[in-house]
């Protein structure tokens, strides 16, 4: 029975192609927007959680208050080498190291560029940073303890993406007017901003930028089996005592990577929800459009409905017929929408890749596809409720008389 009705409904949609297509337009715009947003969002979220997971759960980060992950260097409060000393003395802290971020003027082959220069500790306190940042060196070597005025460059410098000429190992590079020798090249990180950074020994950075003890970020690794939240509390307490601030008024942040991931996830979900909300407006328009089409269809086919009733169709039969037609109208829009959405997401991924963002991979989990199709079918059915009800209630005599 239902199979016959489905066949019947699909036939009607097929015969009235133009009408079907126009009706679906709003639905597939909405569905395409939602599918591309979710698949890209999912991809981004996966990429970022993968990176966080790689860092491990026993890592803690201390930064001045008023900064958030990724935005360093311009906060009101400061943390210094003295804070690092305090942290290193907290029990169950295995290792702690600090970094300095500075915007620097680079000169190479008579060309000038500005980029971030990162001061990396070259003593054992740098190990924790190396581990967290998972640096891989594709050419040359990493910075060592005896290095002074040596530099490791990001991959975009090595690829001649920043300067006209490739920056190679043993080349000379001027940073803030001081001459540095290139000793190594970093592998690709996947973020174009990160890939144009240069890395210099922390001690050299202190001389070049005249920053005797400032640090922008301190990375900490706890000992094995330590309770990370307890260590976080200890660090907070020691830093409060040392910096003479009250609880609740800290001018520094102590975060675990897990916390950062959660914060990120919350913000991310919120942004995604808002975007999907906006895309849903298009779906609402799609629903109204389907309803309109179905009302017109009921009117156009009044006579047909009368005939079907005369030859034995019950009200329920007519109702089901119209609901199915309307549902498939929604789902057809959904199918095209999913395809366009997937294409769109792939395009964005490709465009990002060409911009050097290699970590973004659009994800199309099966539940996204199936869910979207079911959702569009349901929207179609809901929009068809009222028109189908009207059709089912037509009196056969009136319907047959209708011209």
């Amino acid at each position, binding site marked *: *029975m239902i199979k*016959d009705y489905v066949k*019947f409904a699909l*036939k*009607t949609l097929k*015969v009235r192609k133009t009408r079907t297509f126009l009706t679906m337009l709003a639905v597939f715009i909405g569905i395409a927007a939602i599918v591309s947003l979710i698949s890209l969002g999912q991809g981004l979220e996966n990429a970022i959680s993968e990176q966080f997971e790689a860092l491990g759960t026993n890592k803690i980060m201390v930064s001045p208050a008023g900064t958030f992950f990724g935005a360093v260097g311009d906060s009101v409060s400061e943390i210094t080498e003295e804070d690092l000393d305090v942290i290193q003395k907290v029990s169950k802290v295995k290792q702690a190291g600090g970094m300095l971020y500075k915007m620097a003027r680079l000169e190479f082959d008579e060309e000038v560029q500005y980029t971030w220069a990162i001061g990396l500790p070259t003593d054992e306190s740098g190990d924790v940073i190396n581990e967290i940042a998972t640096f891989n060196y594709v050419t040359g070597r990493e910075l060592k303890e005896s290095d002074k005025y040596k530099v490791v460059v990001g991959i975009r410098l090595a690829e001649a993406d920043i300067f006209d000429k490739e920056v190679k190992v043993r080349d000379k590079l001027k940073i803030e007017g001081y001459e540095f020798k290139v000793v190594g090249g970093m592998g690709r990180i996947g973020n174009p901003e990160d890939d144009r950074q240069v890395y210099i020994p922390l001690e050299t950075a202190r001389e070049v930028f005249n920053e005797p003890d400032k640090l922008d970020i301190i990375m900490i690794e706890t000992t094995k089996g330590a309770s990370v939240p307890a260590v976080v509390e200890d660090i907070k307490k020691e830093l409060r005592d040392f910096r003479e601030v009250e609880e609740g008024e800290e001018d520094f942040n102590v975060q675990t990577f897990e916390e950062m991931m959660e914060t990120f996830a919350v913000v991310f979900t919120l942004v995604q929800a808002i975007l999907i909300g906006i895309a849903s407006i298009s779906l609402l328009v799609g629903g109204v459009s389907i309803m309109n089409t179905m009302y017109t269809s009921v009117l156009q086919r009044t*006579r*047909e409905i*009368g*005939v*079907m*009733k*005369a*030859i*034995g*169709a*019950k*009200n*329920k*039969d007519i109702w089901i017929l119209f609901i199915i037609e309307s549902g498939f109208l929604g789902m057809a829009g959904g199918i095209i929408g999913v395809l366009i959405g997937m294409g769109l997401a792939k395009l964005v991924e490709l465009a990002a890749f060409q911009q050097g963002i290699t970590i973004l991979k659009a994800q199309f989990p099966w539940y996204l596809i199936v869910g979207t199709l079911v959702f569009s079918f349901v929207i179609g059915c809901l929009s068809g409720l009222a028109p189908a009800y009207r059709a089912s209630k037509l*009196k*056969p*005599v009136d319907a*047959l008389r209708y011209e």
Partner: protein
Amino acid sequence: MNKPIIELKDVWKIYQIGHVKIPALRGLSLSIHSGEFIAIMGKSGSGKSTLMNMVGCLDIPTKGRVNLYGDDIASFTESDLAQTRGKKIGFIFQKFNLIPTLTAFENVMLPMIFQGIPFEERKKKAQSLLSMVGLSERSAHRPGELSGGEQQRVAIARSLAIDPEIILADEPTGNLDSKTGKMVMDLIIKLHKEQKKTIIIVTHDEDVAKYAQKIKVLRDGLVIGQKK
């Protein structure tokens, strides 16, 4: 004589248009027995179409009773009435009224779908009916691709899909030229003679009515005469 299969007793049908009440049928009584061939004649406005709706159980009277196999149709729910109508009465309309999106074959199957008959059975029946009306070759065509005469023959095949005892034809030749009209009438007469169907034809055409055993003439909502 045996009990009538359709019986109208003092049937009134009053249409209300604005504040004006227009009686289309005014206390009409009529009995139709199994195996009869009746023509209902009358000018437009005589109540012919209203009577057809009553006989076809498409509408219920304002006053009076319409019995289908002894049951008052006013006591049926809308859906029961549809179901019963689908089983007992086959309709043939002046404008053929085939579903334009379906092929001839599917149109013939449609009444059987509403009765929940399984596909294989439906298919066999539809094929045999289409071959009976001489349209096996055209079964995959949509109504728009068929001539008027062909469409009416498909409609006749459709009216027979559930094997109803009663065939109700409303001006079956009204939209056809005389040659194809004759062909359609021959088919209807064959149904009466060979398959013992009860035939009710509503028409204003003497040439069509002459085939019937009885002719009821309608004027102003009443049967005013009977020819034959």
